[in-house]
């Protein structure tokens, strides 16, 4: 078997007060595959993405586990080599397309800069590449967009720009952190479709962070369900929807609103389920403490 695109093995991270935010997380993304990472707010989805991309907040410390990017152990690399590897093989499609673009620089230079400066492309080649990508994300007036400042574009346009930028350097892995949450409902679907389209065309693996099971069903082949920094279930997407194993997954599914009757099905996760989860996490923490003194 060839190496996984991303392989996270038993990753734990703690806050300064000793609290674990990631609890022995294991997950892998195969080349060209989309793995969804679902969980409610605060579950640690963003934290996992940041860990992979090497931008964890300084207060968060990794205390255990390995992360392998195309077979290379990130923990074994010198910081500089790690940065270079991450820069060359990964990209991020962020949640908020406004703050993810530099407000004082025009889109064009902002997009080509990375190709030229980091990857050493010629300006001409970078320019051509960017235009090609803008076409792929269905931006019809690239001239105007390239000359614009971020605030002159709509949220949907900005996210298209960021998607184009993410795919431009042909990364092997893209982390998409709730890429549609900050957008208008009407735009969300288009953006989701675009990401799926480019993912297929480029064969890029994606770690797709979301709290929306509807999105999971549409875009992913694999799912990991996260609760309080712990993977409580992982499965093929089809299997998960057909037969969710963990009570928490079932509760999440029941809580997901349906178009037919949005409010009726929107119910909080059951007390008993939460109690079960708390016990599960307590046991895991106990075992972890024993291992780590």
């Amino acid at each position, binding site marked *: 078997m060839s190496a996984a695109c991303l392989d996270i093995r038993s990753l734990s991270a703690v806050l300064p007060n000793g609290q674990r935010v990631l609890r022995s997380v294991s997950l892998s993304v195969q080349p060209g595959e989309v793995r969804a990472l679902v969980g409610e707010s605060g579950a640690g989805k963003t934290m996992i993405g940041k860990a992979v991309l090497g*931008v964890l907040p*300084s207060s968060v410390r990794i205390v255990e586990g390995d992360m392998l990017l195309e077979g290379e152990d990130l923990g074994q690399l010198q910081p500089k080599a790690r940065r270079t590897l991450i*820069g060359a093989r990964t*990209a*991020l499609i962020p949640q908020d397309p406004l703050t*993810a673009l530099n407000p*004082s*620089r025009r889109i064009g230079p902002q997009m080509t800069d990375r190709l030229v400066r980091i990857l050493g492309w010629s300006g001409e080649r970078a320019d051509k590449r960017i235009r090609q990508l803008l076409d792929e994300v269905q931006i019809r007036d690239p001239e105007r967009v390239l000359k614009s400042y971020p605030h002159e574009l709509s949220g949907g346009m900005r996210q298209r720009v960021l998607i184009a930028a993410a795919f431009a350097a042909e990364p092997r892995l893209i982390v998409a952190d709730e890429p549609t949450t900050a957008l208008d409902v009407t735009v969300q679907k288009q953006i989701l479709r675009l990401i799926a389209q480019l993912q297929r065309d480029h064969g890029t693996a994606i770690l797709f962070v979301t709290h929306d099971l509807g999105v999971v069903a549409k875009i992913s082949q694999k799912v990991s369900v996260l609760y309080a920094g712990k993977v409580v279930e992982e499965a093929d997407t089809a299997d998960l929807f057909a037969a969710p194993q963990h009570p928490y997954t079932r509760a999440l599914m029941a809580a997901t609103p349906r178009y037919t009757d949005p409010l009726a099905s929107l119910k909080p996760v059951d007390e008993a389920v939460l109690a079960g989860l708390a016990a599960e996490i307590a046991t895991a923490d106990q075992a972890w403490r024993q291992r780590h003194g």
Partner: protein
Amino acid sequence: MDEARIARRGVGPRLWLAGGWLLLALLAAIFAPLIAPQDPLAQDLMLERLPPFWLDGTEPGYWLGTDSLGRDLLSRLIFGGRIAFIVAFAAALAACLVGSALGLIAGYFGGWADRIISRVVDIWMAFPPVLFAILLVAVLGTGLSSVIIAIAVIDWTRFCRVIRAEAMGQSRMDYVENARIAGYGRIGIMLREVLPNVVPSIVALLSLEMGIAVIVEAILSFVNLSISTDDPTWGGIIAEGRLSIHQAWWVLVFPLITLILTVLSFSQFGEALKARFDPVLR
């Protein structure tokens, strides 16, 4: 967006009025020997305390009147502008360079760099600024360069505080994280990504600081701690005017107006420039 539009509408006249006055004053100062109607140092007891041109008992060529030694007020104001502008530019630029650089480093890198720099700023700001300036000049000795050094040494903290806060805010934005993921080095990100976003504030502060430098220089002249007493300075003229306020109010009023106009113009000009520079407000 609405706010931005309102801000922009205000930019036009504000920028032109403030900029116009500054340009006028600057040109007058540069070309003082050509423009000034009289020798600013020439005393003539026959001409003492001449009133400004619209009052009775004036002499032609003495537009704003004369002081108690018979020296032409307008010429003294024009020559005084030379020292005011030299001090304004040199001191503000020095304060700006030091303060902005340290503020950018503290705000972007955070951690111990920020702790050290912020601590120094706190200690610095515990001194009352004018007292600090007087003390410094007393130690350094009077003279143009001591005044410039004193102002820069005191006021770099103003830049440091503001730019630190702004750089810190910018550093938390996702675009900085994105640049980090892409593989840019820390210093490169600070200079290429963060710095352009704080430039509008640096420009505004720089202009404001020039105004402040003019005031501080005037205060130092006023207490006779600035440049050699022969060269006219705005503060020096104000100090003299205060003594003869009852016989010749103009000797006090005109330099005060000049000073206030200049200081206000610097701050307004800075604000307007900032709005112009800022792509989000533009």
